[in-house]
Protein backbone atom coordinates (compact mmCIF):
# COMPACT_ATOMS: atom_id res chain seq x y z
CA UNK A 1 0.00 0.00 0.00
CA UNK A 2 1.31 3.44 -0.86
CA UNK A 3 2.74 5.25 2.12
CA UNK A 4 3.10 2.38 4.55
CA UNK A 5 6.85 2.91 4.57
CA UNK A 6 6.39 6.14 6.53
CA UNK A 7 4.32 4.55 9.28
CA UNK A 8 5.09 6.03 12.63
CA UNK A 9 5.26 9.43 14.14
CA UNK A 10 6.54 12.39 12.16
CA UNK A 11 8.54 14.23 14.75
CA UNK A 12 9.92 17.75 14.44
CA UNK A 13 13.62 17.73 13.68
CA UNK A 14 16.15 20.52 13.62
CA UNK A 15 17.81 20.88 10.22
CA UNK A 16 21.04 22.77 9.53
CA UNK A 17 21.13 25.10 6.58
CA UNK A 18 24.40 24.10 4.94
CA UNK A 19 24.15 26.05 1.71
CA UNK A 20 21.91 28.46 -0.12
CA UNK A 21 21.87 28.78 -3.92
CA UNK A 22 20.26 31.57 -5.92
CA UNK A 23 18.18 29.96 -8.67
CA UNK A 24 16.50 33.03 -10.15
CA UNK A 25 16.03 36.63 -8.98
CA UNK A 26 13.01 35.42 -6.97
CA UNK A 27 13.96 31.89 -5.98
CA UNK A 28 16.55 30.22 -3.77
CA UNK A 29 17.39 26.62 -3.03
CA UNK A 30 18.07 25.77 0.61
CA UNK A 31 20.39 22.82 1.12
CA UNK A 32 19.56 21.26 4.47
CA UNK A 33 21.23 18.58 6.50
CA UNK A 34 18.70 16.75 8.63
CA UNK A 35 20.30 14.53 11.27
CA UNK A 36 18.47 11.19 11.39
CA UNK A 37 16.74 11.73 8.04
CA UNK A 38 15.65 8.32 6.75
CA UNK A 39 15.20 9.27 3.10
CA UNK A 40 12.21 10.25 1.01
CA UNK A 41 10.38 9.39 -2.17
CA UNK A 42 10.43 11.71 -5.17
CA UNK A 43 7.40 14.01 -4.95
CA UNK A 44 7.07 14.19 -1.17
CA UNK A 45 7.24 17.38 0.86
CA UNK A 46 8.25 18.58 4.31
CA UNK A 47 6.57 20.97 6.70
CA UNK A 48 8.75 23.81 7.98
CA UNK A 49 8.03 25.47 11.30
CA UNK A 50 9.37 28.94 11.99
CA UNK A 51 9.35 30.43 15.48
CA UNK A 52 9.76 34.15 16.24
CA UNK A 53 11.48 35.46 19.39
CA UNK A 54 8.14 35.87 21.14
CA UNK A 55 7.06 32.30 20.40
CA UNK A 56 4.82 33.10 17.44
CA UNK A 57 4.95 30.26 14.91
CA UNK A 58 4.18 29.74 11.26
CA UNK A 59 4.19 26.48 9.27
CA UNK A 60 4.41 26.00 5.51
CA UNK A 61 4.92 23.00 3.21
CA UNK A 62 7.79 22.75 0.74
CA UNK A 63 8.45 19.97 -1.74
CA UNK A 64 11.75 18.18 -1.67
CA UNK A 65 13.44 19.03 -4.96
CA UNK A 66 16.44 16.73 -4.58
CA UNK A 67 16.71 12.99 -5.15
CA UNK A 68 17.31 10.93 -2.01
CA UNK A 69 20.88 11.62 -0.83
CA UNK A 70 21.67 10.55 2.71
CA UNK A 71 20.65 13.19 5.26
CA UNK A 72 20.65 16.05 2.74
CA UNK A 73 17.56 17.54 1.21
CA UNK A 74 17.07 20.56 -1.01
CA UNK A 75 14.05 22.85 -1.05
CA UNK A 76 13.48 25.48 -3.71
CA UNK A 77 11.42 28.44 -2.54
CA UNK A 78 9.98 31.06 -4.86
CA UNK A 79 9.27 34.39 -3.19
CA UNK A 80 5.59 35.38 -2.96
CA UNK A 81 5.88 39.17 -2.72
CA UNK A 82 3.50 39.83 0.16
CA UNK A 83 4.06 36.44 1.79
CA UNK A 84 4.80 35.77 5.44
CA UNK A 85 7.32 32.95 5.11
CA UNK A 86 8.75 32.79 1.59
CA UNK A 87 10.41 36.27 1.73
CA UNK A 88 12.23 35.12 4.86
CA UNK A 89 13.34 31.86 3.21
CA UNK A 90 14.47 33.60 0.02
CA UNK A 91 16.11 36.52 1.84
CA UNK A 92 17.11 36.30 5.45
CA UNK A 93 17.99 32.68 6.17
CA UNK A 94 21.52 31.52 5.40
CA UNK A 95 24.21 28.92 6.02
CA UNK A 96 24.69 28.21 9.72
CA UNK A 97 21.03 28.87 10.54
CA UNK A 98 18.82 26.11 11.83
CA UNK A 99 15.19 25.43 11.05
CA UNK A 100 12.60 22.93 12.26
CA UNK A 101 10.96 20.54 9.87
CA UNK A 102 9.11 17.28 9.74
CA UNK A 103 8.51 14.80 7.00
CA UNK A 104 8.65 13.34 4.50
CA UNK A 105 4.92 13.76 3.92
CA UNK A 106 2.65 12.47 1.18
CA UNK A 107 2.33 9.05 -0.39
CA UNK A 108 0.34 9.73 -3.54
CA UNK A 109 2.11 12.42 -5.56
CA UNK A 110 5.13 10.15 -5.76
CA UNK A 111 7.12 8.47 -8.50
CA UNK A 112 9.36 5.48 -7.95
CA UNK A 113 11.70 4.07 -10.58
CA UNK A 114 9.82 0.76 -10.27
CA UNK A 115 6.66 2.51 -11.54
CA UNK A 116 8.45 2.95 -14.87
CA UNK A 117 7.22 5.20 -17.64
CA UNK A 118 6.26 6.88 -19.72
CA UNK A 119 6.10 10.00 -17.58
CA UNK A 120 4.44 13.28 -18.39
CA UNK A 121 5.51 15.94 -15.91
CA UNK A 122 3.94 19.40 -16.07
CA UNK A 123 5.11 22.09 -13.65
CA UNK A 124 4.17 25.73 -13.22
CA UNK A 125 6.48 28.06 -11.26
CA UNK A 126 7.61 26.51 -7.97
CA UNK A 127 5.51 23.47 -8.93
CA UNK A 128 8.59 22.26 -10.75
CA UNK A 129 10.25 21.37 -7.43
CA UNK A 130 8.72 17.91 -6.79
CA UNK A 131 9.00 17.07 -10.51
CA UNK A 132 12.69 17.95 -10.32
CA UNK A 133 13.06 15.34 -7.57
CA UNK A 134 11.60 12.78 -9.99
CA UNK A 135 13.83 13.84 -12.89
CA UNK A 136 16.91 13.83 -10.65
CA UNK A 137 16.04 10.41 -9.23
CA UNK A 138 15.47 9.07 -12.73
CA UNK A 139 18.95 10.25 -13.71
CA UNK A 140 20.59 9.05 -10.49
CA UNK A 141 19.35 5.47 -10.86
CA UNK A 142 19.71 5.39 -14.66
CA UNK A 143 16.01 4.74 -15.20
CA UNK A 144 15.13 4.42 -18.87
CA UNK A 145 11.57 5.67 -18.29
CA UNK A 146 10.61 7.85 -21.21
CA UNK A 147 9.91 11.28 -19.71
CA UNK A 148 8.48 14.52 -21.08
CA UNK A 149 8.85 17.53 -18.81
CA UNK A 150 6.87 20.65 -19.64
CA UNK A 151 8.01 23.67 -17.63
CA UNK A 152 5.85 26.78 -17.45
CA UNK A 153 7.55 29.95 -16.18
CA UNK A 154 6.57 33.60 -16.20
CA UNK A 155 9.64 34.93 -17.94
CA UNK A 156 13.01 33.62 -19.03
CA UNK A 157 14.74 34.84 -15.86
CA UNK A 158 12.21 32.88 -13.76
CA UNK A 159 13.04 29.49 -15.29
CA UNK A 160 14.21 27.19 -12.49
CA UNK A 161 17.07 24.69 -12.92
CA UNK A 162 17.53 25.67 -16.55
CA UNK A 163 21.20 24.72 -16.93
CA UNK A 164 20.78 21.44 -15.07
CA UNK A 165 17.73 20.50 -17.13
CA UNK A 166 19.76 21.24 -20.25
CA UNK A 167 22.42 18.82 -19.06
CA UNK A 168 19.94 16.11 -18.04
CA UNK A 169 17.95 16.21 -21.28
CA UNK A 170 18.47 13.36 -23.73
CA UNK A 171 18.47 9.63 -23.15
CA UNK A 172 14.69 9.51 -22.96
CA UNK A 173 14.16 12.86 -21.20
CA UNK A 174 12.67 15.69 -23.23
CA UNK A 175 12.41 19.13 -21.62
CA UNK A 176 10.07 21.72 -23.13
CA UNK A 177 9.72 25.30 -21.86
CA UNK A 178 6.90 27.77 -22.14
CA UNK A 179 6.88 31.39 -20.97
CA UNK A 180 3.57 32.93 -19.99
CA UNK A 181 4.35 36.63 -19.58
CA UNK A 182 7.04 37.48 -22.12
CA UNK A 183 8.76 36.30 -25.26
CA UNK A 184 12.41 37.33 -25.37
CA UNK A 185 14.21 37.80 -28.69
CA UNK A 186 15.56 34.48 -29.93
CA UNK A 187 13.25 32.40 -27.69
CA UNK A 188 12.51 29.14 -29.46
CA UNK A 189 10.15 27.52 -26.94
CA UNK A 190 6.46 28.13 -26.42
CA UNK A 191 5.24 31.53 -25.23
CA UNK A 192 1.73 31.00 -23.90
CA UNK A 193 -0.12 29.27 -21.10
CA UNK A 194 -0.18 25.48 -21.24
CA UNK A 195 -3.17 24.30 -23.28
CA UNK A 196 -4.44 21.08 -24.85
CA UNK A 197 -2.63 21.71 -28.16
CA UNK A 198 0.67 22.17 -26.38
CA UNK A 199 0.14 19.03 -24.26
CA UNK A 200 -0.73 17.05 -27.39
CA UNK A 201 2.47 18.22 -29.09
CA UNK A 202 4.64 17.50 -26.06
CA UNK A 203 3.11 14.02 -25.62
CA UNK A 204 3.09 11.18 -24.84
CA UNK A 205 -0.51 10.80 -25.93
CA UNK A 206 -3.21 8.92 -24.03
CA UNK A 207 -2.55 5.74 -26.01
CA UNK A 208 0.86 5.46 -24.33
CA UNK A 209 -0.91 5.68 -20.94
CA UNK A 210 1.69 7.92 -19.29
CA UNK A 211 1.78 8.58 -15.56
CA UNK A 212 1.00 12.29 -15.44
CA UNK A 213 2.13 14.52 -12.58
CA UNK A 214 0.89 18.11 -12.57
CA UNK A 215 2.03 20.65 -9.97
CA UNK A 216 1.75 24.39 -9.51
CA UNK A 217 -0.72 27.08 -8.52
CA UNK A 218 -4.34 25.95 -8.38
CA UNK A 219 -5.58 27.64 -11.60
CA UNK A 220 -2.61 26.16 -13.48
CA UNK A 221 -3.25 22.66 -12.16
CA UNK A 222 -6.98 22.91 -12.87
CA UNK A 223 -6.35 24.00 -16.46
CA UNK A 224 -3.70 21.38 -17.20
CA UNK A 225 -5.60 18.50 -15.59
CA UNK A 226 -8.78 19.42 -17.46
CA UNK A 227 -6.89 19.63 -20.75
CA UNK A 228 -5.32 16.21 -20.16
CA UNK A 229 -8.75 14.68 -19.47
CA UNK A 230 -10.12 16.36 -22.59
CA UNK A 231 -7.27 14.83 -24.63
CA UNK A 232 -8.34 11.40 -23.41
CA UNK A 233 -5.91 10.73 -20.58
CA UNK A 234 -7.39 8.57 -17.83
CA UNK A 235 -8.22 10.69 -14.78
CA UNK A 236 -6.82 7.95 -12.53
CA UNK A 237 -3.40 8.38 -14.13
CA UNK A 238 -3.27 12.13 -13.51
CA UNK A 239 -1.84 13.08 -10.12
CA UNK A 240 -1.98 16.66 -9.01
CA UNK A 241 -0.42 18.77 -6.30
CA UNK A 242 -1.64 22.32 -5.75
CA UNK A 243 0.59 24.90 -4.08
CA UNK A 244 -1.07 28.15 -4.26
CA UNK A 245 -4.11 30.28 -3.92
CA UNK A 246 -7.17 30.56 -6.05
CA UNK A 247 -6.80 34.30 -6.22
CA UNK A 248 -10.18 34.99 -4.64
Amino acid at each position, binding site marked *: *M*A*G*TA*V*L*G*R*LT*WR*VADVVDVRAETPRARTLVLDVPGWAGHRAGQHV*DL*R*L*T*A*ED*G*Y*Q*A*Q*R*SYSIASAPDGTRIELTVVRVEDG*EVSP*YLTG*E*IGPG*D*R*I*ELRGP*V*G*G*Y*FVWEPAHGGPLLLVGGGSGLAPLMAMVRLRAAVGSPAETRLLVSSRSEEDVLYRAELGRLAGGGLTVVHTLTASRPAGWSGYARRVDADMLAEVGPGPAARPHAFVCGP*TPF*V*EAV*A*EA*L*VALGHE*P*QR*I*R*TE*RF*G*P*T*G*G
Partner: protein
Amino acid sequence: MSIITRGFRGRREAASADRVPPGQYVTRDFPVLSAGPTPHTPLDRWDFSIDGEVDEPRRWTWEEFRALPSEEVTRDIHCVTKWTKLDTVWRGVSVDTLLDGVETSADHVVQYSDGGYTTNLPLEDLLDGKAWIAFEYEGEPLEPAHGGPARVLVPHLYFWKSAKWVRGLRLLDHDEPGFWEVNGYHHYGDPWREQRYWGD
Protein backbone atom coordinates in the same frame (compact mmCIF):
# COMPACT_ATOMS: atom_id res chain seq x y z
CA MET B 1 10.94 22.54 22.57
CA SER B 2 10.98 24.75 19.53
CA ILE B 3 14.11 26.56 18.46
CA ILE B 4 13.97 30.23 17.53
CA THR B 5 14.26 30.84 13.80
CA ARG B 6 16.83 33.63 13.67
CA GLY B 7 15.45 36.83 12.22
CA PHE B 8 11.95 35.49 11.62
CA ARG B 9 9.26 37.85 12.83
CA GLY B 10 6.13 36.58 11.13
CA ARG B 11 3.00 38.53 10.51
CA ARG B 12 0.46 37.66 13.11
CA GLU B 13 -3.21 38.20 12.60
CA ALA B 14 -4.10 39.99 15.81
CA ALA B 15 -7.78 39.16 15.65
CA SER B 16 -9.41 35.78 16.17
CA ALA B 17 -6.41 33.90 17.55
CA ASP B 18 -8.82 31.70 19.50
CA ARG B 19 -10.39 30.64 16.21
CA VAL B 20 -7.15 29.58 14.52
CA PRO B 21 -5.92 26.07 15.43
CA PRO B 22 -2.19 25.44 16.04
CA GLY B 23 0.00 25.62 12.93
CA GLN B 24 -2.75 27.23 10.84
CA TYR B 25 -2.91 30.72 9.31
CA VAL B 26 -5.87 32.73 8.12
CA THR B 27 -6.38 33.20 4.40
CA ARG B 28 -8.97 35.15 2.51
CA ASP B 29 -8.47 33.01 -0.60
CA PHE B 30 -10.14 29.63 -0.99
CA PRO B 31 -7.31 27.27 -1.90
CA VAL B 32 -7.97 23.85 -3.39
CA LEU B 33 -6.62 20.45 -2.36
CA SER B 34 -7.30 17.48 -4.61
CA ALA B 35 -5.23 14.58 -5.82
CA GLY B 36 -6.40 14.54 -9.43
CA PRO B 37 -8.53 16.25 -12.06
CA THR B 38 -11.86 17.81 -11.16
CA PRO B 39 -14.78 15.54 -12.16
CA HIS B 40 -17.81 17.04 -13.91
CA THR B 41 -20.91 14.93 -13.35
CA PRO B 42 -24.05 16.26 -15.05
CA LEU B 43 -26.91 16.77 -12.60
CA ASP B 44 -29.20 14.35 -14.46
CA ARG B 45 -26.64 11.62 -13.76
CA TRP B 46 -25.98 12.65 -10.17
CA ASP B 47 -27.50 10.87 -7.22
CA PHE B 48 -26.73 10.50 -3.55
CA SER B 49 -26.82 7.24 -1.60
CA ILE B 50 -26.78 5.99 1.96
CA ASP B 51 -25.66 2.36 1.92
CA GLY B 52 -23.60 -0.27 3.72
CA GLU B 53 -24.80 -1.54 7.12
CA VAL B 54 -28.30 -0.10 6.91
CA ASP B 55 -31.75 -1.66 7.02
CA GLU B 56 -32.46 -0.40 3.55
CA PRO B 57 -30.23 1.67 1.22
CA ARG B 58 -31.49 5.17 0.36
CA ARG B 59 -30.97 7.08 -2.84
CA TRP B 60 -31.91 10.59 -3.96
CA THR B 61 -31.74 12.10 -7.44
CA TRP B 62 -30.54 15.71 -7.66
CA GLU B 63 -34.14 16.94 -7.72
CA GLU B 64 -35.15 14.79 -4.77
CA PHE B 65 -32.06 15.88 -2.87
CA ARG B 66 -32.72 19.56 -3.52
CA ALA B 67 -36.32 19.14 -2.36
CA LEU B 68 -35.06 18.15 1.11
CA PRO B 69 -35.00 20.84 3.79
CA SER B 70 -31.67 22.70 3.76
CA GLU B 71 -29.93 25.07 6.15
CA GLU B 72 -27.55 27.98 5.86
CA VAL B 73 -24.50 27.49 8.04
CA THR B 74 -21.56 29.79 8.76
CA ARG B 75 -18.42 28.02 9.91
CA ASP B 76 -14.62 28.28 10.03
CA ILE B 77 -12.82 25.69 7.91
CA HIS B 78 -9.30 24.33 8.39
CA CYS B 79 -7.22 22.66 5.65
CA VAL B 80 -4.32 20.36 6.55
CA THR B 81 -2.15 22.35 4.11
CA LYS B 82 -2.22 25.05 6.85
CA TRP B 83 -4.88 27.54 5.77
CA THR B 84 -7.89 28.44 7.83
CA LYS B 85 -10.78 30.38 6.40
CA LEU B 86 -13.14 32.12 8.80
CA ASP B 87 -16.89 32.59 8.50
CA THR B 88 -17.51 30.63 5.31
CA VAL B 89 -21.19 30.49 4.39
CA TRP B 90 -22.74 27.32 3.02
CA ARG B 91 -26.16 25.91 2.25
CA GLY B 92 -26.71 22.21 2.55
CA VAL B 93 -28.80 19.32 3.78
CA SER B 94 -27.97 18.20 7.30
CA VAL B 95 -26.72 14.61 7.47
CA ASP B 96 -29.27 14.17 10.29
CA THR B 97 -31.99 14.77 7.70
CA LEU B 98 -30.53 12.14 5.36
CA LEU B 99 -30.15 9.56 8.13
CA ASP B 100 -33.55 10.24 9.65
CA GLY B 101 -35.29 6.87 10.07
CA VAL B 102 -32.28 4.85 8.91
CA GLU B 103 -31.61 1.87 11.14
CA THR B 104 -27.99 0.91 11.49
CA SER B 105 -25.54 -0.85 13.77
CA ALA B 106 -22.64 0.98 12.16
CA ASP B 107 -20.28 3.30 13.94
CA HIS B 108 -17.99 4.22 11.05
CA VAL B 109 -18.62 5.93 7.73
CA VAL B 110 -16.78 6.15 4.44
CA GLN B 111 -17.69 9.13 2.26
CA TYR B 112 -17.24 8.27 -1.40
CA SER B 113 -17.01 10.55 -4.41
CA ASP B 114 -16.83 10.85 -8.16
CA GLY B 115 -13.22 10.31 -9.17
CA GLY B 116 -12.74 7.58 -6.57
CA TYR B 117 -11.95 9.74 -3.52
CA THR B 118 -12.88 8.33 -0.13
CA THR B 119 -12.48 9.49 3.45
CA ASN B 120 -13.40 7.81 6.72
CA LEU B 121 -14.71 9.09 10.05
CA PRO B 122 -16.75 7.94 13.02
CA LEU B 123 -20.49 8.09 12.42
CA GLU B 124 -21.02 10.28 15.47
CA ASP B 125 -18.96 13.04 13.83
CA LEU B 126 -21.64 13.33 11.16
CA LEU B 127 -24.58 13.49 13.59
CA ASP B 128 -26.32 16.07 15.75
CA GLY B 129 -25.91 19.12 13.57
CA LYS B 130 -22.19 18.63 12.90
CA ALA B 131 -22.25 17.80 9.16
CA TRP B 132 -24.00 18.75 5.93
CA ILE B 133 -24.07 17.84 2.26
CA ALA B 134 -23.48 21.34 0.90
CA PHE B 135 -24.47 22.56 -2.55
CA GLU B 136 -24.07 26.35 -2.22
CA TYR B 137 -21.11 28.45 -1.17
CA GLU B 138 -21.49 32.16 -0.41
CA GLY B 139 -24.91 32.14 -2.04
CA GLU B 140 -23.78 30.59 -5.33
CA PRO B 141 -23.94 27.01 -6.62
CA LEU B 142 -20.81 25.23 -5.43
CA GLU B 143 -18.10 25.39 -8.15
CA PRO B 144 -16.69 22.08 -9.42
CA ALA B 145 -13.17 22.96 -8.23
CA HIS B 146 -14.52 23.28 -4.69
CA GLY B 147 -16.50 20.06 -4.87
CA GLY B 148 -19.69 20.93 -6.74
CA PRO B 149 -22.34 19.95 -7.37
CA ALA B 150 -22.27 18.78 -3.74
CA ARG B 151 -19.65 18.14 -1.07
CA VAL B 152 -19.60 17.10 2.53
CA LEU B 153 -19.09 19.82 5.14
CA VAL B 154 -17.70 18.57 8.48
CA PRO B 155 -16.11 21.80 9.67
CA HIS B 156 -14.83 20.53 13.02
CA LEU B 157 -12.31 18.22 11.28
CA TYR B 158 -9.55 19.07 8.77
CA PHE B 159 -11.17 19.79 5.45
CA TRP B 160 -10.03 16.63 3.65
CA LYS B 161 -12.61 14.91 5.87
CA SER B 162 -15.23 16.87 3.89
CA ALA B 163 -15.26 14.95 0.61
CA LYS B 164 -15.73 16.93 -2.58
CA TRP B 165 -17.97 15.60 -5.40
CA VAL B 166 -19.58 13.33 -2.85
CA ARG B 167 -21.99 10.66 -4.06
CA GLY B 168 -22.74 8.75 -0.93
CA LEU B 169 -22.10 7.67 2.63
CA ARG B 170 -21.28 4.03 3.33
CA LEU B 171 -22.05 3.04 6.90
CA LEU B 172 -19.69 0.39 8.27
CA ASP B 173 -19.23 -1.56 11.47
CA HIS B 174 -15.44 -1.15 11.18
CA ASP B 175 -13.03 1.68 10.39
CA GLU B 176 -11.80 1.73 6.79
CA PRO B 177 -9.07 4.28 6.00
CA GLY B 178 -9.78 6.47 2.98
CA PHE B 179 -7.61 8.00 0.29
CA TRP B 180 -5.39 10.39 2.28
CA GLU B 181 -5.59 8.19 5.35
CA VAL B 182 -3.69 5.38 3.59
CA ASN B 183 -1.26 8.00 2.27
CA GLY B 184 0.10 9.15 5.61
CA TYR B 185 -2.65 11.42 6.91
CA HIS B 186 -4.33 11.06 10.28
CA HIS B 187 -7.34 8.78 10.70
CA TYR B 188 -9.37 11.30 12.69
CA GLY B 189 -7.99 14.75 11.81
CA ASP B 190 -8.89 17.10 14.68
CA PRO B 191 -7.32 20.50 13.85
CA TRP B 192 -7.35 21.61 17.51
CA ARG B 193 -5.16 18.63 18.41
CA GLU B 194 -3.15 19.16 15.19
CA GLN B 195 -3.79 15.61 13.98
CA ARG B 196 -2.30 16.06 10.52
CA TYR B 197 -0.31 12.89 9.99
CA TRP B 198 -0.07 9.32 11.22
CA GLY B 199 0.93 9.28 14.87
CA ASP B 200 0.00 12.90 15.59
